[in-house]
């Protein structure tokens, strides 16, 4: 209720005197007695005092310059927040200096009678304010046909976003990567406040969010509906959010489990509901009830990554956008000759086995920094496993049309002389140095036909690159550096020379996803590398082997998923890329090169 109930006229007269400062001491008792016995009087008093307090606050903040304290230090990036809140007056000294200066609304004012303890707190807060003022918490990682309401704000592809920054997207779609790991796709027209790296407020419009399990927590609010939990998450989540700009909102869950909260006008939680995939909840502006209905994924743009077919030098793609279960016979992506086929599928009774297969699809993509990832991921849970998929190398197929196929006595393979092919994939294992696993490229099935293998244990070479089609012995296979249990991005560039003198250059976790010249190779191998299929193998030991985001194309950006809108090509690569990766090179054992390790996301 926001309108006070009717108090007596006697109380109103006393209240008016109280506000004017003319309430006599003889009237105190009556005034107090009425407040004590009459709830309506208290409600009227509360309403009146709220307005009195606000009048003091806002009029004090608009005092003449002569009345304003001299010192003023507004961090540039906090200006929008300051404009939104005019809370600055002499009585806000403590808040402004001790607390509000950190993030919200305070001006830095002179301090009267602050104790040493207060002064320390002020110094700490001011130091933190200056630090926060220059620390971005998110970045616009992709755009499509974007038009911003304030073009002078220089918001666009690659822009760093500060805490408390407001994004006003008039049209188009923008992808925002938060430093917590969450990704939001904002669809214009929409207004979004970036509160910090883990929290945002959708004032109007719609967005789709992907929150990997490694994110910890991420919260986003739309009107009176809030999504997320301020606790470490157990699993990933993907959901859409709508805000009508009048307090109403909807949340649609596409993956994982999401807790949606109904909030009051102050933002406090009234109740919450747990939503599962394909469930949605709606709150209307003036309602206190949550209605549940079926989620509608078609109402949201959920990815800016274009996977509809070959484009921009990308000829084959597999994002494992399949439901959890066996990978065999799945037939998505593009650039392939047919579905996945089990070659070997663990004959032991694995508790993780689904339907007998241990070459599986499981929920959530492997997350790797700003690289776009959609769908789920492949996982091999048992130890006698190999699954393969043949590429579309037939006459008139996508690779043939691009002139990439060579015909060797009727065996059609990628590897035309003078051509270059890039292959990229994400790979992770959960146990180090545990016998064999690998991402393989073959010309026909069988170990003898393994052209290249990226992993551990092949021919006893350790973590590295091996091949059965080269002139090296097992001892000379190049290392991929120190094996780890993180998600690793591997990019192999294969240059097909005449006379089968091919060269493969390997990048592991490259410093840039845009500019190959900034990346240090970690391995290089010479041999005969024409191939017609890929496979994943996992043998012996007890590890799990995961693979995701397989791309085959003819240029570096095509396989990193970072094809750049033409309008942004004038910007330097460094400008676009700096900040996502550490600049300190990490030495790699057994290699003269170095590679840059991605920061944690």
């Amino acid at each position, binding site marked *: 209720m926001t309108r006070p109930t009717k108090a007596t006229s006697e109380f109103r007269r006393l209240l008016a005197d109280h506000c004017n400062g003319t309430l006599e001491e003889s009237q105190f008792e009556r005034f107090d007695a009425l407040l004590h016995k009459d709830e309506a009087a208290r409600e009227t008093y509360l309403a009146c005092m709220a307005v009195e307090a606000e009048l003091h606050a806002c009029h004090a903040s608009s005092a003449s310059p002569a009345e304003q304290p001299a010192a003023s230090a507004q961090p540039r990036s906090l200006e929008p927040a300051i404009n939104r809140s005019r809370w600055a007056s*002499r009585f806000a000294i403590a808040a402004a200096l001790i607390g509000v200066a950190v993030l919200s609304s305070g001006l830095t004012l002179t301090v009267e009678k602050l104790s040493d303890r207060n002064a320390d707190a002020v110094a700490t807060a001011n130091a933190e304010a200056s630090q926060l003022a220059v620390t971005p918490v998110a970045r616009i990682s992709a755009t499509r046909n974007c038009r911003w309401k304030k073009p002078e704000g220089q918001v666009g592809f690659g822009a760093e976003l500060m805490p408390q920054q407001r994004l006003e997207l008039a049209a188009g779609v923008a992808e925002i990567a938060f430093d917590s790991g969450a990704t939001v796709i904002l669809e214009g027209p929409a207004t979004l406040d970036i509160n910090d790296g883990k929290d945002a407020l959708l004032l109007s419009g719609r967005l789709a969010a992907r929150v990997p399990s490694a994110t910890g927590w991420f919260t986003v609010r739309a009107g009176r509906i809030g999504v997320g939990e301020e606790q470490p998450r157990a699993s990933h989540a993907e959901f859409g959010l709508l805000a009508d700009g009048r307090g109403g909102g909807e949340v649609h869950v596409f993956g994982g489990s999401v807790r949606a909260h109904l909030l009051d006008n102050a933002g406090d939680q009234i109740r919450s509901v747990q939503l599962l995939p394909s469930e949605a909840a709606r709150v209307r502006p003036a309602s206190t009830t949550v209605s549940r209905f079926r989620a509608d994924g078609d109402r949201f743009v959920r990815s800016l990554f274009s996977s509809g077919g070959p484009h921009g030098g990308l000829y084959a793609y597999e994002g494992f956008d399949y439901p959890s279960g066996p990978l065999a016979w799945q037939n998505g992506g593009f650039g392939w000759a047919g579905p996945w086929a089990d070659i070997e599928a663990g004959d032991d009774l694995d508790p993780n086995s689904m339907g007998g297969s241990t070459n599986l699809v499981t929920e959530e993509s492997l997350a790797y920094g700003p690289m776009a990832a959609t769908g789920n991921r492949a996982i091999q849970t048992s130890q006698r496993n190999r699954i393969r998929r043949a590429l579309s190398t037939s006459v008139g197929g996508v690779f043939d049309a691009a002139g990439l196929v060579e015909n060797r006595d009727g065996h059609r393979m990628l590897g035309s002389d003078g051509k270059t092919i890039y292959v990229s994939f994400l790979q992770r294992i959960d146990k180090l140095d545990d016998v064999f696993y690998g991402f393989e490229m073959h010309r026909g099935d069988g170990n003898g036909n393994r052209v290249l293998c990226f992993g551990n244990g092949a021919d006893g070479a350790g973590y590295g690159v091996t091949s059965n089609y080269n002139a090296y012995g097992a001892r000379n296979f190049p290392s991929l550096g120190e094996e780890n249990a993180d998600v690793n991005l591997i990019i192999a560039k294969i240059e097909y020379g005449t006379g089968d003198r091919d060269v493969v250059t390997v990048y592991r976790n490259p410093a840039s996803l845009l500019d190959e010249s900034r990346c240090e190779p970690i391995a290089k191998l010479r041999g005969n590398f024409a191939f017609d299929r890929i496979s994943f193998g996992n043998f012996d030991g007890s590890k799990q082997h995961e693979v995701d985001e397989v791309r085959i194309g003819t240029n570096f950006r095509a396989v990193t998923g970072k094809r750049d809108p033409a309008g942004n090509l004038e910007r330097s690569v460094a400008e676009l890329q700096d900040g996502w990766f550490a600049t300190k090179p990490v030495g790699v054992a057994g290699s003269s090169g170095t590679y840059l390790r991605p920061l944690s996301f």
Partner: protein
Amino acid sequence: MARAGDDFSRATEADDVGDRDLRAQFARVFAQNDRWLFAYLVTLLGSPADAEEVFQEVCVILWRDYDKFDPTTNFMKWASVIAHHQVHRFRRTQTRRAKPLSDAVVDLLADEAVAKADLMDSRRLALHDCLKKLPASDLELERHCYSDSRRSMKAVAELLGRPANTVYKAMNRIRQSLHGCIDRKLASEGTV
């Protein structure tokens, strides 16, 4: 091979980041509620000038103890306990002349101000639109009366060279007008 020092520095760095996140989160919650907190103190103390004084002390305590605040709980409730306590401490230093409200009423108001925070917030927000509708002369008088909490309306009347009674009556009329405007605005928004 990782060294113990590296582990320590990584742990310290992680602690720093966690603490910074917590402070930033607290700052955000604080900023969302600072106006309400001041209004809460004005309500309990009945005087903006006294509220300013107590507000400073409450802010120092809140920021000193920010790490004790559980972000999953209600900030208003947490802050109101501290503020209520500080109000009682302050009142113990006051004379009877300065205390129109009894302790019992202060306690009643303390509970209801938290329970009816929506009422206070929506009226405060609506006020800004209503101020724009005031005639310039009323706005000017109001600015004089509210720009310095230590300046009484009698002092404002002297400053303006007007009889004090006319200032009191004018301010009663202006307040009545503002509250009427707020009521109508909230009713039209369907929030009443």
